[in-house]
């Protein structure tokens, strides 16, 4: 399909591409939000600069996907980002989870190990997905994937460096990293799944099959874990499937914060 007009003329295709775009958009949007809460709190100033650059890129990717949804007649991109209830969101539960105890403005006892593992595992899953999307049957999405892939290369390199450095360091780091890996793996399946409509997406050539993508993610992970003194636990979706609109309280509080100003007057121009 070359354009939004063509996609809209085919209801089955439109349903599948819309579903996929919501997953991609909501994943990037919520993790960029969580990342932005870290601003000023990273382990050192250089990391603050790098991390906020990654968050900004990721928010930009979400904006691209929301604009593609807008072009498909789903409504205004800003409304899609700021004004949908938790039950309508398709992001993975792992990505909505708070950064740690505390609030981003008061006593934030955020967990850097969790940040590194969550971002690294997510960036790798996103990389696998983006590589597949470069050949998507929906041309606007394939074009977006090429653009996003250029920035994603650096994100992945960044998180992989942190990951291997902390896992192999002395002191508390390896233990903290192990705990974070266990915690992330409990919900990682929710990131890797394409949800109940995944088979349709693959059949229509929008993206490859979930099973194939998941295998590729595991292959990449195995390469990284192989020389390390730890192994990757089984990935699960313990708290349910975000692709089906199942979410936690963490998403509600995130939506209240990120939509606070927007909701003061949704029709106003800000």
């Amino acid at each position, binding site marked *: 399909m070359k354009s939004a007009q063509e996609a809209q003329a085919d209801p089955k295709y439109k349903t599948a591409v819309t579903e996929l775009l919501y997953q991609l958009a909501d994943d990037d949007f919520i993790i960029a939000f969580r990342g932005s809460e870290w601003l000023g709190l990273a382990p050192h100033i250089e990391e*603050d600069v790098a991390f906020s650059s990654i968050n*900004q890129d990721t928010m930009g990717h979400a*904006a691209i996907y929301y604009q593609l949804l807008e072009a498909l007649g789903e409504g205004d991109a*800003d409304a899609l980002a700021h004004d949908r209830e938790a039950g309508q969101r398709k992001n993975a539960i792992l990505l909505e989870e708070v950064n740690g105890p505390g609030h981003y403005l008061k006593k934030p*006892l955020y967990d850097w190990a969790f940040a590194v593992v969550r971002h690294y595992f997510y960036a790798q899953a996103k990389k696998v997905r983006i590589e597949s999307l470069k050949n998507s049957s929906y041309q606007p999405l394939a074009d977006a994937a090429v653009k996003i892939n250029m920035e994603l290369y650096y994100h992945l390199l960044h998180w992989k460096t942190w990951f291997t450095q902390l896992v192999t360091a*002395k002191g508390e780091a390896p233990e903290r990293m192990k705990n974070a890996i266990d915690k992330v793996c409990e919900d990682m399946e929710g990131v890797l799944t394409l949800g109940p409509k995944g088979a349709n997406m693959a059949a229509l050539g929008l993206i490859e099959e979930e099973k194939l993508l998941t295998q590729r993610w595991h292959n990449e992970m195995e390469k990284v874990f192989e020389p390390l003194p730890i192994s990757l636990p089984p990935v699960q979706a313990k708290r349910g499937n975000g692709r089906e609109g199942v979410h936690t309280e963490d998403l509600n509080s995130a939506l209240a914060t990120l939509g606070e*100003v927007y909701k003061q*007057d949704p029709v106003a121009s*800000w």
Partner: protein
Amino acid sequence: MSTTLSYDRLSEEEKHSQFMERIESGEKIEADDWMPKDYRMTLIKLISMHGISEIMGALPEKEWVPKAPSLRRKLGIMAKVQDEMGHGQLLLRVAEDLMKPMGKTREEIMQDLFRGDLKFHNVFHMPAPTWGDAGLIGWLVDGAAIITQTNMLKASYGPYARALKRICAEEVFHAQHGEAIIMALAEGTEEQRALIQDAIDRWWESLLMFFGPASATTTGTSKQDTTIKYRIRTKTNEELRQAFLDKYIPRVLSLGLTIPDETLHYDKEKQQWVYQQPDWNEFKNIVRNNGPKSKDRLDLRITAYENNAWVREALSPDGAVV
């Protein structure tokens, strides 16, 4: 080699006079060059305060980064605050080089900040309770920063002058980002307009204070004489404040907004703005970390610093597995 040897034989006084000749002829001083002790100390104080202010300055806006009301505004403010952090990093690197011969590092800068020995800019001790403040900070606080920083673009210390060149270029974007937020609010609903007026009322005194006291008699200390003597800056605090008022008063008024100072007027004869002096005792109080948000923002940095101690340990040279 022979020039180095002969230079080493010069007395301190001769070195000093050569140094003054160099800066007076517009030459740049570099990190490894000989420099008078008070020049080095003035630069360390100025640049570490500037750097740490950029970093602490990210905190009032931090509040609004996740809350920005559209995707475009979210991207804009994320980019802006990232730049501020980047400026902080760049400036701390410049300060670190100056501190190196004294055996000091960034760690000392952070500890000085936490103890309250290293001050950060008065504006960053103030609350930013609405989205109007997020716009105003970009528009007027960054606008004021452009005026003070362009004043030092020709600073005699090369590394600082070069860092400022890049910083000023980015600050221009920040001011445009702030102005774009303000324009959208100014053209919006009554409630949106009220957000800007409230923010101006709240920030006016802090903006006047931003440039520092007119002279040492106001607050007891002022570094402006030393920095002018050493060609680090050219204009006085009052000249900078007047330049700010020249630039921004017409802009504020043209948006139909008011300035909370009934005495404010332009004296045509003296060619300067006459304004109600801010409370300079309060200024001293604020920069001593007794401002409305001083403790909260310092707490935020200290919490992050302590909470991430294990990461620093892991990254330290003896922390990695050999």
